[in-house]
């Protein structure tokens, strides 16, 4: 029992470490890009990591009520990805993330 608890403690710390690592990696991807979808994907990944984080903290503190937060986050995370995909489409044709050309073309297409 005791060792089990200790084990759990260790596991929690280990997984927190892993999650922090993946957080940082994801952040790097967000900053590095290079393309818009990459960043969005990274944000999606960020949500997933956050969910994991919440869950682990929930286990650590024994407050299982965090499960709802995790679920809700999953829901809106999905919404976010959808919205961003929508955003990519609306922004229209791009070669790479040279924004001005991207947005002028987009402005021509949609505005007015």
């Amino acid at each position, binding site marked *: *029992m005791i*060792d*089990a*608890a200790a*084990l*759990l403690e*260790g*596991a*929690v710390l*280990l*997984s*927190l470490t*892993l*999650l922090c*690592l*993946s*957080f940082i*990696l*994801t952040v*790097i*991807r967000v900053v590095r890009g290079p*393309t*818009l*979808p*990459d960043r*969005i*994907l*990274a944000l*999606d*990944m960020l949500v*997933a*990591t956050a*969910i*994991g984080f919440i*869950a*682990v903290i*929930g*286990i650590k503190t*024994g407050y*299982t009520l*965090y*499960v*709802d937060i*995790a*679920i809700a986050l*999953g*829901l809106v995370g*999905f919404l976010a*990805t*959808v919205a*961003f*995909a*929508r955003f*990519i*489409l609306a*922004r*229209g*044709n*791009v*070669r790479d993330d040279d924004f001005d050309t991207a947005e002028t073309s987009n402005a021509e297409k949609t505005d007015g």
Partner: protein
Amino acid sequence: MDSFLVILVAIMIVIGSAFTLVAALGLIRLPDVYTRMHAASKAGTLGSGVVLIALGIEAGDTGTLTRALAGVAFFLLTAPISAHLLAKASYAVGYRLSEQSVIDEMPKQGSRINSAEK
């Protein structure tokens, strides 16, 4: 709560976190957005899902567990869709595959699809 469950939970969260980390790594290492999607949509989803279920088990009451399961189910439902939307959108507006790509049978009319949206 008996130690078996505790150990189970411990293992699950470690595995889950590991998967998440793998996904993150994939995000960094894989060449283009489409390949990265593989990592995110599979490993990422699975990772968070496992940890969530672990939490459900650790809670030890059916309500929480069922909620956790429902949540995971929801993720499994949404993950492929977000991947699909993202990929489709990116492709539609012309984000090309990486040079390593060997084949592309997708019709090249991003703008058509795009205008079909509107």
